[in-house]
């Protein structure tokens, strides 16, 4: 049962590739399969677990936390596959999509350092192929940057794995607690790079903005989550890492917001919002998985929609009107990220704030206001009546339906929570109108996104985490 969502997509994709037929159906079918498995685990609460006999804690685990991510993977893959089928994409894309789907599922069910290393690298390679398949300079260069950064991160992770094995004799995630501080710092830093959190995540705006719309949706929606789930698990297992990861999460939230206010390009704005939301996922380990699900679905809808926009420049978009059928799903998804009642983002935000201590709750509320302000340029775009050309693609609307269903299912229906959420969004819009919006007119100084700076920043954060782990 636990291996089905991994092996079926991989095997089916390779088999269909060999017989040259049916490739387009594979991502859809495997998405449905994963959705079934994810829902079953979420609804019944069963925990599937399989360990290698006589192993060094090498094994897989499918619990509720992992099931949220498997379900997210299923939903986003389905949307991406249907979206591209309607565009008549060549079959190569669908093979990669099915392979990515399988390897991402493998990442979400791996529960030890060794498996994680192997499957994260596998997913990275497939994501790299997806980014750079265009063979234009921008795709090639951004793909290479992505590969560089994640490889450096995973080399740190591998070094950490060695130190953990030497100290505890196993590859269990729980064994990270017994390892020397350097090992913990190395592992956390490696995962931060993959998850796009805080300074190690600075590669993300360019990579996600320059990829094709559907690839950005996959990257921002699911691929960054392969670094976040292990971090959430580490938070649960190891007490003293918990505080450090939460602080890094808050750092990521505000860094993403800060960068986002200076962006004029809608895709870069969305990518900066991804950095900020990735931080948000880490600040509460219990509610983080549900939050990751809502963020992934909403962000995928936004990126898929951004592919149908006439321009990427927010100013031009504001001057010209945007087709209603493209804009409405995007605005609904943006509202969900901002935490508007009736949408699932509201339920997830509520769950996060319910379990945070008071002081952190205040910070989180400030971050929510910032998120609403960041997304307000999208919320304030104006509709134009539907045009005949280009053809309408319903996939983003389907994603919004998922968000709406989740919001209605999870509530909460209390008036206080709803008023608070409305106040947060209103405050965000006011703040944006009061002047934050003007920041977009002065671009940040160039050059901070250079490859060596991003790698250097990652090394600095590694040193910082090492210090933070040593001091207590």
């Amino acid at each position, binding site marked *: 049962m636990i291996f089905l969502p991994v092996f079926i997509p991989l095997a089916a994709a390779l088999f269909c590739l060999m017989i040259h037929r049916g490739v387009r159906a594979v991502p859809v079918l495997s998405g449905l399969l994963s959705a079934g498995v994810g829902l079953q685990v979420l609804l019944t609460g069963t925990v599937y677990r399989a360990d290698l006999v006589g192993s060094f804690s090498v094994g897989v685990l499918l619990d509720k936390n992992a099931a949220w991510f498997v379900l997210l993977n299923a939903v986003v893959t389905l949307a991406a596959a249907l979206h591209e089928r309607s565009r008549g994409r060549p079959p190569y894309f669908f093979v990669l999509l099915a392979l990515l789907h399988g390897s991402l599922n493998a990442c979400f069910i791996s529960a030890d350092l060794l498996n994680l290393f192997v499957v994260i*690298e596998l997913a*990275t*390679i497939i994501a790299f192929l997806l980014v*750079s398949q265009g063979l234009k300079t921008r795709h090639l260069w951004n*793909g*290479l940057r992505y590969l560089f950064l994640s*490889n450096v991160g995973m*080399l740190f992770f591998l*070094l950490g794995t060695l130190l953990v094995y030497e100290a505890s004799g196993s590859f269990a995630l729980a064994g990270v607690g017994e390892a020397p501080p350097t090992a913990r710092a190395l592992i956390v830093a490696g995962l931060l790079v993959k998850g796009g959190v805080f300074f190690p995540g600075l590669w993300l705006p360019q990579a996600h903005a320059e990829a094709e719309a559907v690839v950005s949706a996959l990257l921002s929606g699911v691929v960054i989550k392969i670094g976040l789930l292990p971090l959430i698990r580490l938070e649960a297992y190891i007490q003293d890492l918990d505080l450090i990861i939460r602080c890094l999460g808050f750092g990521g939230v505000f860094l993403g917001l800060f960068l986002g206010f200076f962006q004029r390009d809608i895709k870069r704005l969305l990518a900066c919002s991804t950095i900020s939301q990735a931080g948000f996922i880490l600040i509460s380990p219990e509610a983080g998985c549900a939050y990751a699900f809502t963020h992934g679905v909403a962000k995928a809808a936004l990126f898929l929609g951004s592919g149908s926009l006439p321009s990427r420049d927010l100013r031009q978009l504001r001057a010209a009107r945007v087709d209603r059928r493209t804009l409405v799903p995007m605005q609904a998804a943006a509202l969900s990220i901002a935490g508007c009642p009736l949408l699932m983002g509201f339920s997830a935000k509520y769950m996060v704030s319910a379990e945070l201590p008071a002081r952190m709750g205040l910070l989180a509320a400030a971050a929510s206001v910032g998120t609403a302000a960041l997304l307000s340029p999208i919320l304030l775009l104006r509709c134009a009546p539907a045009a005949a050309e280009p053809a309408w693609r319903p996939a983003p609307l389907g994603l919004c339906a998922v968000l709406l269903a989740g919001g209605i299912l999870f509530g909460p229906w209390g008036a206080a929570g709803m008023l608070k959420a409305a106040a947060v969004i209103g405050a965000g819009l006011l703040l944006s109108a009061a002047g934050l919006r003007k920041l977009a007119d002065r671009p940040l100084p160039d050059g901070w996104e250079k490859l060596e700076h991003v790698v250097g920043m990652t090394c600095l954060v590694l040193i910082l985490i090492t210090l933070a782990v040593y001091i207590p």
Partner: protein
Amino acid sequence: MHEQQILRALVLSVIVIGLFGLLFKRSLLLRILAMDVMSTGIVSLFVLAASRHGRRTPTVSAEGEAAYADPVLQAVILTAIVIGFSIIALALLKSMFLARRFPTLEVDEIEKEWREEE
């Protein structure tokens, strides 16, 4: 033990040298090679750690049990070598495509001009 520590320090310095190459080399090709140096350093560190308690293969033999090398670490690193190899191969392949437009593969030049369509 002393010998082990010296070797370990050497291998760690290889990793740091690789990292510095990744940060400071101007050419994309050399950066890819620096990445390979870094991963070679980590591979050597694994091999070194595996041979800490002995160097024999862990098979049953007439001589009885002797101190043997840790097979788990060697299995792990074998996987990591394969992954590292495929990543380097892919990076080189894609940089061949990039080299059509930027024959010198200078990173600064690429960073400046990649936005302009060819």
